[in-house]
């Protein structure tokens, strides 16, 4: 019996146990499949950030559809089908987003009216932003980091932080309000 087949059967057993509520087996399985998912999707997403995004998305999907796995069948085809599908979905989502975004180089040029430039400069000044974010209360800082810096969806951020979607929304709103006040001096 090859190591490959061994691994396959081991993951299949771990998933069957996880379906029955065995958290230790599920923990081992999820940690072990990360490298397999990375290897499956790496070719489509070149940067480390993007690969991490896909890996996390695949883990969330595996969790959501784990009841569809049949322990009588091999585990790897089930997992790689999910990984490939989510990877393509993410590429499409990025494609749609970049198709809707407009790059306008002239937007960075200064306006003849000095008053207009001042308003732009206030929002362009990001020197103290990191410091301002660091100064936020913990829950607000976490919301900004997950939702804006890591660009997770509300559901994903909720899974990662353990906070409810409503709490994340409220913290995000408060964080933006206090960051705006701090950066613009309003």
């Amino acid at each position, binding site marked *: 019996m090859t190591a490959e087949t061994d691994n396959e059967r081991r993951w299949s057993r771990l998933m069957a146990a996880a379906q*029955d509520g065995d958290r230790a087996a599920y923990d081992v399985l999820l940690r072990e499949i990360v490298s397999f998912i990375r290897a499956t999707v790496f070719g489509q997403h070149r940067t480390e950030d993007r690969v*991490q995004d896909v890996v*996390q998305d695949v883990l*969330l999907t595996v969790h959501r*559809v784990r009841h*569809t796995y049949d322990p009588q069948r091999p585990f790897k085809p089930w997992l790689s089908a999910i990984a490939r599908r989510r990877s393509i979905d993410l590429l499409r989502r990025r494609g749609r987003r970049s198709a809707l975004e407009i790059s306008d180089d002239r937007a960075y040029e200064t306006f003849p009216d000095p008053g207009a430039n001042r308003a732009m400069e206030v929002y362009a000044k990001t020197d103290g932003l990191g410091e301002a974010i660091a100064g936020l209360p913990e829950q607000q800082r976490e919301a900004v980091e997950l939702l804006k810096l890591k660009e997770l969806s509300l559901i*994903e951020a909720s*899974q990662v932080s*353990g906070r409810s979607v409503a709490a994340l929304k409220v913290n995000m709103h408060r964080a933006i309000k206090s960051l705006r006040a701090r950066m613009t001096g309003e």
Partner: protein
Amino acid sequence: MADETAKLIERLVADARPVRRLRPPALRACLWLLAVLAASGVVIVLFADLDVFFGRITDSALAIEWVATLVTGIAAVLAAFQLSLPDRSPAWALLPLPSFALWVSSSGYSCFRHWIVYGPTGWELGDSANCFFFILAFSLPLAASLLFLLRRAAPLAPVRVAAMGALGVSALAAVALQFFHPFDVTFVDLGVHLGAVALVVLGVSATEYFSARGRAARQA
């Protein structure tokens, strides 16, 4: 492993309640088909003129068309249940195609024969409006119940699964229609039947498309 991924795994593990595995897709498809057979059997026995149907079905062309429609319906429903699972081959989508081709071609042949025998009256509109609404009315509740079951698998390609399911239910509606259709179809009738099938497939697929987008937007 990145901290973020490790943290996510901890959360997922903490949320790992026992889940009920889905039954094999072929078994789920059979159970749904049996429920449909039982419900539509009652309606057919109560309201259809079975003597007329059994008289017409002795015509081999009509028998072939009816069996092809039935096989299309069963194959499409089975394919939809298979496709709803992540690890099943996309080739399942091809399963209903041969019988669908036979259904359309045999139905087309019947129309042509009707046209040859009856001349220009073969082009007239039969009882098509009623057929159209029959297929819609029969398909929609079936489609709703089928979509409910298919969504249990949280399919990764929901629109493809919904389109396949809709082809199945509209074909089954066309099978049931023959019990209430005591005349051969004309070209126009065929167009109306297939138009109703296409409308059900498009309608159900569009519903699933917008519903999936809504779910994704709520998650974003």
